[in-house]
């Protein structure tokens, strides 16, 4: 192994020119190590898909360089394509074709011989549990089946690096778990995986390391455990009557930094850890404030995200499909002010 | 668009004759404004008839050397082609207008109209009257262009009115049929799918070439195709002195078809209301 399978330096992509240019990705530095699952975490429009499209040769960078599997994504695009497998958002599968036909087509596109393609197709159908449905038109597949077929298609040529762009968006919990298991199995076999996601749990469960991207910039990068440790203290969330919010906020600030929390609650990162909970309650009680709800959370990736970006990812329109397009990359998202 | 519902006059009782007129007028206005706001949809109804007329005039003008043609049909092929262009433009315009109605149904605006105290008849009549207004504008523009290009209305000013009236009545007949189809199907796609039928009606008639020169089964179909007679009535206004048969063909015939097609449209509306 000579170098990391994915290396990006100052990778940028702007849409439009001049002052009106939208900086969908702006100076991303990234290094994904051999054999790891790397999670690319961010809300809709943060720049995840644009980054993946550049790394997979679908989009030329405006600035910066990127090497995938050791090849320059611009100068050696063809070699990059031979080495990578990609499952993009919205499983781009022709609904009029059958699963088996699509696998055959994919095998030809990647230069496999007829026999090798056939054998590989059967093996992959078996692997993703679609052998029985192989001769049905894809239009009749469920969302989970389509995603699994998409994954199988991306593996036809046994790529060394696999890109999964929001592989579980829109899937039910069971289908999501099935896909996670398959990704873990692939990774155990030595495939390096870069997956984008807007689900914190997915990144937490699967990724060896993650990068948080916001407004086209990477704001945090590292192993989930390290990142959580950086946030440090647990978060205490309380809710009080609306007319007591200001006073409660003032009291909480004595125990640590105020943190963004869900609507209607106040959050504080307890500087001395969980042992401060009793002191907080006492102080609120002494001030005559009635605590309606109280919750103590150990640091999570959401806290890491909130600490890095000033707002929380959970509930930030996760159900909506990303709308990053070349014409108009969306950069808006629901935001809560950082205190 | 919310013109119809925003008009306070629309909210009057739907029972009286005057309210039917008011509702029809308001919905006519909405229909016309809606058409004019979609120039891209309206453009083919202007461009293609004029293009085909220009093409026919340049391609078939040598036909004017045929004694039968000059004696009985027209002095020039352009003078002959005017009526065909009017027919084609009106048929295109009416069919695409019915597409608007189907879109109203698909998008739920039709339901909103039904839920308001508006005369049911006015909903259909307003759409048909809108098509007639657009057809009148279309015929006037077409005639102006052809007159500038050198065409001549042989039957004089009354023939000019005859052509405009014929175009309007044809629009009424065709719109009624297509509106019925739109209400019955509730699908813009089905209405669009009826376009080939319009082509068949036009080509299997004397709209583009005189029936006299057609042969065999094609001639028989053209003889029986009412479009042949309607367009020949209009061709009469363009190429001959004024006479009653021109009105009978280009006014009375589309009027009779209009009665049937409006009945079809109203019946389709009743069936839709009964089903909802």
């Amino acid at each position, binding site marked *: 192994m000579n170098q990391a399978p994915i290396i990006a330096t100052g990778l940028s992509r702007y849409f439009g020119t001049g002052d009106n240019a939208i900086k969908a990705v702006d100076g991303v530095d990234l290094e994904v190590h051999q054999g790891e699952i790397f999670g690319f975490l961010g809300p809709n429009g943060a720049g995840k898909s644009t980054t993946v499209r550049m790394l997979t040769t679908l989009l030329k960078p405006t600035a910066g360089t990127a090497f995938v599997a050791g090849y*320059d994504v611009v100068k050696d695009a063809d070699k990059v394509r031979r080495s990578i497998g*990609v499952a993009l958002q919205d499983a781009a599968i022709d609904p009029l074709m059958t699963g088996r036909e699509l696998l055959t087509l994919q095998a030809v*596109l*990647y230069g496999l011989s007829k026999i090798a393609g056939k054998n590989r197709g059967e093996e992959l159908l078996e692997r993703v549990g679609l052998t029985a449905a192989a001769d049905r038109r894809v239009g009749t597949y469920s969302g989970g089946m389509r995603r699994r077929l998409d994954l199988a298609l991306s593996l036809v040529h046994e790529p*060394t690096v696999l890109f999964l762009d929001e592989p579980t968006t829109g899937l039910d919990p069971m289908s999501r778990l099935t896909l996670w298991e398959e990704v873990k199995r692939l990774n155990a076999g030595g495939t390096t995986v870069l997956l984008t996601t807007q689900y914190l749990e997915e990144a937490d469960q699967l990724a060896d390391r993650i990068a948080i991207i916001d407004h086209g910039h990477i704001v945090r990068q590292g192993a989930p455990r390290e990142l959580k440790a950086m946030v440090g203290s647990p978060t205490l969330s309380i809710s009080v009557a609306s007319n007591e919010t200001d006073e409660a906020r003032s009291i909480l600030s004595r125990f640590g930094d105020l943190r963004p929390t869900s609507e209607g609650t106040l959050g504080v990162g307890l500087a001395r850890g969980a042992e401060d909970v009793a002191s907080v309650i006492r102080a609120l009680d002494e001030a005559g404030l009635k605590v309606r709800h109280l919750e103590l959370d150990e640091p999570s990736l959401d806290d890491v995200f909130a600490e890095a970006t000033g707002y929380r990812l959970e509930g930030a329109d996760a159900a909506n499909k990303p709308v990053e397009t070349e014409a108009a990359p969306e950069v808006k998202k629901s935001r809560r002010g950082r205190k | 668009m919310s013109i119809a519902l925003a008009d306070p006059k629309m909210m009057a009782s739907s029972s009286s004759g005057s309210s039917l007129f008011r509702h029809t007028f308001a919905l006519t206005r909405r229909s016309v404004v809606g058409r004019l706001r979609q120039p891209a949809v309206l453009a083919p109804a202007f461009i293609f008839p004029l293009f085909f007329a220009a093409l026919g005039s340049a391609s*078939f003008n040598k036909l004017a050397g045929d004694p039968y043609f000059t004696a009985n049909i027209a002095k020039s092929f352009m003078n002959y082609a005017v009526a065909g262009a009017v027919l084609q433009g009106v048929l295109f315009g009416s069919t695409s207008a019915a597409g608007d109605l189907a879109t109203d149904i698909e998008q739920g605006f039709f339901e909103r109209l039904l839920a308001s105290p508006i005369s049911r008849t006015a909903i259909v009549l307003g759409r048909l009257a809108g098509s007639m207004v657009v057809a009148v504008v279309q015929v006037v523009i077409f005639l102006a262009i052809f007159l500038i290009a050198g065409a001549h209305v042989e039957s004089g000013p009354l023939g000019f009115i005859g052509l405009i009236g014929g175009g309007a009545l044809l629009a009424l007949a065709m719109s009624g049929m297509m509106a019925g189809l739109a209400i019955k199907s509730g699908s813009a796609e089905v209405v669009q799918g009826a376009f080939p039928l319009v082509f068949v009606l036009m*080509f299997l008639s004397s709209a583009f070439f005189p029936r006299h020169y057609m042969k065999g089964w094609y001639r028989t179909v053209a003889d029986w195709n009412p479009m042949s007679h309607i367009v020949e009535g209009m061709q009469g206004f363009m190429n001959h002195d004024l006479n009653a048969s021109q009105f009978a063909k280009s006014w009375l015939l589309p009027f009779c078809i209009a009665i049937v097609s409006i009945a079809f449209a109203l019946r389709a509306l009743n069936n839709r209301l009964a089903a909802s």
Partner: protein
Amino acid sequence: MSNLTAEQPVNVRTISEGARPFEVVAILVKRSMIRVRRMPSAFIPSLIMPIFQLIAFSGAFGFAVTSLGIKNALDWYVPLNAMQGASFGALGVSFGLINDMQTGFFDRILMAPAQRWVTVISSLAAAVVRCFVPITFVVIVGYIGGMNTPGGPMAIVCVAIASVAIALVAAGFALGLTFRMRNLGAATLTQFAIFFTIFLSTSQVPLSAMSGWLRGVARINPMTNILRFARQGFLGDVTWEQSWGGLLAMGALLILTFIYAMTGIKKFDQ
């Protein structure tokens, strides 16, 4: 952050050696045929329209050509409508490409290690295969209607060559436009371009019967030469004098539209 350059590739486990052009073209054409078979509603109009036009033109305008000494109106209109039918196949290619772009399937093809010219050739080949169906039907209807082929089998060969060339030219133009516009407007514009190019030529009557502006336009329209090439075997013998102009026009248009398609996909790539 590492600032390495690609001195050596990483982990060369991949079994992909790049796509074999001929196989890629064959499988993408096969896919196009599968789509036609499984969604006939999108294909049937392109089959019916040229036949309807053949019947309508020969029925309505027949006198205009038979009065000029042509034995049967079908002799004049079969080549025209075969070529029109072939051009509709190109529209199908444009619609298919737009659909693939919108669904993301085209990304899958772009990400494969197949060269871009192979992708363009695949679409052109699909248009050619699709065009044989309407050409065959139009010729069959022509035979049923009693068309004459004094040029013998070469008459049909000339129609086939001209129709395939028109399918390729129209598909190349459609591809170039679709890669640039990336929406259904490309198909509509292609439709307009084909329509006007065909009708502003000797589509309806010979050049000698035309008058005014149309004669001037038709004279310089390359479609006139191609139609002359396609019709010659229906009106008399197939000769080099009647052929070279059409062959030259077809060759030039094929080169131009192929370049247009290739620069289009290059633009799309960027």
